[in-house]
């Protein structure tokens, strides 16, 4: 334990820093894509015509109903062996991770958005239409901005989860924080110190995300949409 500090600064931190960049490159696009997928599918589940609504329901059921590890394995190990005619999709490990994370978190966002939409009084949609808005204009400009505010704390939580489950990327050969940490631990046989620091990296990421999400929430705050007092 005597050379704790030198070990950390010489081996763990440089390794994890390169893993951190990889993790961020997975998390940030997945967070945005997931949110977009969630808003679209959540909206479809409430307002879209029957077939699209049912497809969106099925999407959410599948991606909430199966383990993320299995989904990631599917994209990485199974998809290359699936072909439709001549057509076959092979994605890099990073792309598989982003696709997997986006679709999984999209399914959860979708739940929050759907709840947010259902909580908006239908009279507002009617009023929008009475002013000559078509349904899409009314949904986009009237209902969604409110639903998004109502859903925001749920969506924030989902993004926090995403940061943590991004560590699953390490099982498909990606050297993210967890992947790098595992390599360092194996080489040095110093599991305790290494995984302690790995944990601190995630804690720092989550804290940073919390600060950013809180700022966004404050920025969107409007009288009548305050967070309920705890």
């Amino acid at each position, binding site marked *: 334990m005597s050379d704790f500090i030198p070990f950390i600064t010489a081996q763990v931190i440089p390794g994890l820093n390169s893993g951190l960049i990889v993790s961020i490159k997975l998390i940030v696009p997945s967070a945005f894509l997931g949110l977009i997928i969630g808003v679209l599918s959540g909206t479809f589940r409430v307002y879209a015509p029957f077939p699209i609504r049912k497809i969106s329901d099925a999407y959410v059921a599948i991606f909430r109903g199966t383990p993320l590890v299995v989904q990631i394995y599917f994209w990485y190990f199974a998809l290359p062996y699936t072909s439709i005619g001549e057509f076959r999709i092979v994605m890099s490990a990073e792309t598989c991770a982003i696709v997997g994370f986006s679709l999984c978190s999209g399914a959860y966002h979708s739940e929050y958005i759907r709840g947010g939409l259902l909580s908006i009084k239908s*009279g507002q949609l009617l009023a929008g239409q*009475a002013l*000559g808005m*078509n349904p899409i*204009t009314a949904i986009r400009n*009237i209902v969604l901005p409110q639903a998004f505010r109502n859903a925001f704390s749920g969506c924030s939580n989902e993004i926090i989860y995403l940061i943590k489950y991004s560590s699953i990327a390490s099982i498909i050969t990606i050297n993210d924080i967890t992947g790098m940490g595992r390599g360092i631990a194996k080489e040095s046989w110093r599991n305790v110190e290494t995984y302690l620091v790995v944990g601190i990296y995630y804690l720092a990421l989550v804290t940073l995300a919390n600060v950013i999400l809180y700022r966004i929430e404050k920025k969107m705050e*409007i009288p*009548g949409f305050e967070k309920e007092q705890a």
Partner: protein
Amino acid sequence: METQTVLEARNIIKNLGGNTVLRGVSIALNKGDIKVLIGPSGSGKSTLLQCLNLLHIPEGGSLLLDNKPVNFKNKSELYQLRQKVGMIFQEFNLFDHLSAKENVSISLRKVKKQGRKEAAKRAEIELQRVGLDDKMNLYPAQLSGGQKQRVSIARALAMDPEVLLLDEPTSALDPELISEVLVVIRDLAKNGMTMLMATHQISFSAALAHEFVFMEDGIITEHGSPKELLAENATSRTKDFCAKIAELTGEQA
């Protein structure tokens, strides 16, 4: 001078939840007309108003705007008609995430495709008109019921409607807030706005309306000037009904 018909409904039929709620209603509004819809709860007043700006699509009958029949199946005709036929709801239905000013300007921007500045300017004018100069930047949660209803009137007027439909605009208000909304409606009347209003404010509307239209069970059973229908020696369903309301609300009919 020729009278100009702005909005005319012919023989409107509407089914809701397996019931025929409107069973052949015809009504015409000439320019400057003020007609008042009265009738018992469930008689179909709200349904008729919503059919008149096609928030409900009637199963039968026809609707003419400026003497031109409207094709219910044509979406763009539908949106066009709604722009020209303003609607005021009992529950105000303000957009909760927008300030008073934005509530008024949003449809100018998104429907009439006006620029941000132009729309904001118009919103200010309309809000001034309903006496809310100092409340423009407040959100619905910060407004009283009477103020909310005035915003919703400003919002409708900004679209330059040819007709205004009002569905019990004061029924959701505390008694002390009713008059501020009625004052606005009276101003509109003075300025020649064509209006059809469902209301239980009998004495107010008797002073204002050119015609009372009495609905019962999905049809119009009586109509005429308030003077005729409410005359000392008249024996009308309208008069009985108004007397009943007066009894309930303590209002002098």
